[in-house]
Each structure stands twice: as structure tokens, then as C-alpha cells.
């Protein structure tokens, strides 16, 4: 299964990005890592070029929210991405916040799986469960 991953926006947390890449590969995914400082449009375009089934965005400095608001609008412009599994993880807000609120907010932005301050392996387990069952078996937290 093909996965597009990368760090969205003006965020240069390259170590986490590399760890995600390696962990996905270890689980047998074919990974296309767009690296840090990636624009939202590049994520979707990469999914079109590769035929990827999963788009996994990471963000560590809370910047994701500014970009995530654009997800639904931008994704709607693409005609072949209806089946794309959208996942986001990392530190998704600036400062602190209620996890349930944060998860709910990001799902409204258009993500199927939201992992706010969740351990990487737990997050990837939830992706597998989602893929296997076609729905979220358990929430990240």
C-alpha cells in the first residue's frame, strides 16, 4: 500500500518525519516522503502521481491548523481522491487544548484519522485498524 507523508507548512521537524518514514517502511508500506516544508497542494498532487491510498501529514509546531482548514476545499478540486485515507498526527495545536475537541475539529477539516500527541506506533496501529476494518476501531486516545 502506498503512503504519502511529509511535514506541512513552515515546519522543519525532519527527525520526526524520518522516523515516520522508517516506521511505515518497517510495516510494509511503500512510502513517498515529501520531507519538511511541504505545501498542502503538493501532498494531494503526490497522491495523484503515485496512486497512493493514504496521505499522512505530520506537524510538530502547531502550524498544521492554519493549513488544515484548507483541506476540504482543496481536496474537492481533485476528481480522483475521494477514496484517499487522510491522516494527521503530531502536536496539532499551539499551547494546550482538550484532545477530544482537537480531534473533532480536525475531523471536521476533512481528516479520517487524527493523532494529537499520540505515540507513533499507536498512531500507525490505528491506521492499520482503519484500513483493515474500513473504519476507526479505536480512537488514538
Amino acid at each position: 500500500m502506498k503512503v504519502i507523508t511529509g511535514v506541512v507548512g513552515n515546519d522543519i521537524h525532519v527527525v520526526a518525519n524520518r522516523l515516520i518514514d522508517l516506521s511505515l517502511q518497517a510495516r510494509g508500506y511503500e512510502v513517498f516522503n515529501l520531507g519538511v516544508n511541504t505545501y498542502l497542494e503538493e501532498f494531494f498532487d503526490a497522491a495523484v502521481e503515485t496512486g497512493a491510498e493514504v496521505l499522512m501529514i505530520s506537524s510538530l509546531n502547531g502550524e498544521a491548523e492554519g493549513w488544515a482548514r484548507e483541506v476540504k476545499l482543496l481536496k474537492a478540486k481533485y476528481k480522483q481522491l475521494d477514496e484517499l485515507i487522510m491522516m494527521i498526527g503530531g502536536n496539532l495545536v499551539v499551547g494546550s487544548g482538550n484532545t477530544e475537541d482537537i480531534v473533532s475539529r480536525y475531523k471536521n477539516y476533512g481528516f479520517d484519522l487524527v493523532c494529537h500527541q499520540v505515540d507513533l506506533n499507536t498512531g500507525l496501529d490505528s491506521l492499520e485498524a482503519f484500513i483493515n476494518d474500513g473504519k476507526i476501531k479505536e480512537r488514538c486516545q
Partner: protein
Amino acid sequence: MSRENEKLFIDIGSTYFKLSTSEHLEQHFRNFNKDILDDLTHKCGNIIKRFDKNDVHICSSANGGLSALIIGISQSFSLKYAANIAFNSGINIIDTVLYQNIEEYTPPSDLIDVVIVVGGINSHDNIFSASLYQYLASLNYSNIVFVGSEKEVPAIKDNIENVVILPNIIDDRLHIVEKYLKEFLTNLYQQDIEGKEDIKHLYDITANQIFSTPYIVNKALPFIDARFSVVNPFILLDIGGATTDIHYSKDLVDDNIVTENEYDRLVFKKLGVYKSRQSLIFAAKENEFVYELLMHLKVTENIFDEESEKATKILMQLAIFLVLCKMSHYKKAYINLKLLAINSIVLTGGITKVLNIDEIENIISFFYKKILTSDHSPATILDSNYDIWTLGAKEKELCQ
């Protein structure tokens, strides 16, 4: 005969031609009533006679360049990569088509020299369908090349007559592969030159391949600091009679294209002060800041109707302003350069014969203040003696 190893470099532009030997450089306004070779030998026959055909090197932009239409499946990868390769091969892009919306595009009526179809990494399939073939059937083109997913090749071959299949320009890590398409397009340019009556006669005086001028200029850029006090990152503007070429340091773009090129090229096809004069004036009138600029230059728009030296100067200054606008974030284009990071702006081409450095700096300063609200002031360098194309031609000749 020429001294051993001495070379003659000739650049045929749309308006002027220039000759360079180790001793001197000269340029002449072209006589459009004459064949280029006749005009050249009439004006510079004595110099040309001194050189053996093997020692004459010619570059030209006078055949108008090739037009291309690119059909790709995403803006950030297939269309962007193909456009980048095409620009760097000296091609003038006329249009790009995003495949998912192909049915919404009106096919261009002009003859297209080459159609480039691209999309998908090699493991991706079922990308193109009947809508592509229907669209292609409505086009008038001379060549077509496919540089997308290899899994699509059988269907493409079955449905498109005379299609040339080349290796994918997108590798399995989504990186660009330039080599094969660049070679194909460069050869196509060569064939175009050989096919054009006016240019092919030039092979009577040279035994070497005639290259496109932007290709030669691009070759010179890594060595430019040998002749000029240029500080990277810089842009080079070649504002000529028919087109304007921009060569820019890759540091000036936030880009997902990873190549060995230090400099990329972009061309504005109908932006020039002689053959493209009317379209330049049209573009100027469309720009909301132009009237302020004219006021700044102490002229009115009546200058557009004049045929004076002053009018040519104003048009050149407008061209600089419009080019900078087109590359800034003020206008969304194929690329937007980080203009505030530029340390040097180098100008070559016909503009160096019309404007002095103060007149150019006046416009650049106006642009930065008005559009970017900044006092940034990159160093301006004029290539008045066409050292850049001479350097590029020599580098190319040394590489052969």
C-alpha cells in the same frame, strides 16, 4: 585564415546579430528584406572569410523557438517538471493542460511543434483514458512525446499515432529525470533550425551544431563571476526584440525540483521591444501600476504611439518593470522568485544598447518600492559587450 585555435562566435537574434572574435565584438541591426546569411556575409563577410567552418560557432533565437503544449496530471510534479525541462531546453511553452480537467480546455488553434504527455510514477496505471485521445484529436501538432508511467505505454502506443516514448521524467521517489526529454527537445530544436530555410543556410559557414541562444546563455551562468562582479543569488534578464528570457539562481525558488542545474530558465514569449512591441504595450496597459510608472518617468501614455528613441527607452524600462512584476508574488505564475533575496540583476541582450545603468536602476528601485514596499537594492550589472553568450559559447565549444 584565422590563427590556430581562434574561434568566431555568432549570435543571431530576432533584431540584431552579433559577432565575437578574440579581438573584438560587433553587432548589426538585421535587414529583414534579406536572407540571414546574405545579410551576415554582406555586413561581416571579411571577418567570416578568415575562419575555417570548424572554428565558427553559431547560436540563434531567430527561428522563433519551438512551441509546446504539456498535458500532465498534477501541477506540482508532472506539469512543473515537464515545463522546467522544456524551458531549460530553450522551448517556449504555449500552454499547459491539467488532465483531470481536460474536457474544459479549448484546444489552441495554432500549430504546436511538440505535445508532451506526462503523468504518474512507473508503478501507477489506469491514468489516461479516452478523454486524452479525444483532446489530442482536436489538436494540430507536429510531434508528440510521452514521458509518463511505463504502465501506460501500451495504451498510449495503441491510441496515439507516431508517439515517441521516452523514459518517465518522474522517478519512483517523485524526483525529476531530465536527461531524456531534454535531449529530445534539444534535438527537436536542432531539426527545426535545419528545417527553416533562413537558418539552415547558416550551415554554409559553420561545421558545428547551431544551438539556441538561451541554452548557450544558461551554460555561461556558472562561470559568470569570471567576467562580472556578480553575487549569488542573481537573475539574468535577456530583454530582446521578440522575447524576454529570465535565468535565475535556484536559491530564489522554494521548489520541489531537485536537479544538478544551478540555474533555471523562464521565458515570456511576447515580451520584447521590436517584434513584440504591440503585445508589450498591451501588457503594460493591463498593469495597474503602469500609469504611475509613466508619471514617474515624466511621460504620458502617448509615448506608446511614438517611434522615437525616447519611446524605445520607455518601452525597455516598462519591459523591466513588467518582467519583475510577473516573477513576483504580486502575480501568480509558473514560478515566483524570492525577489527580496536577489543580490544582483544582470541585464543582457538589446536592452544594454538602449538604456544606461541609471535608467535601469531607476526602474528597479521603483518596482521594489511600489510592488514590494522595500528599499532593497540589488546590484545592477550590464553585459554591454555580450560577454555572457561569448562565455557560454566558449564553454559549450570546450565541452564538445
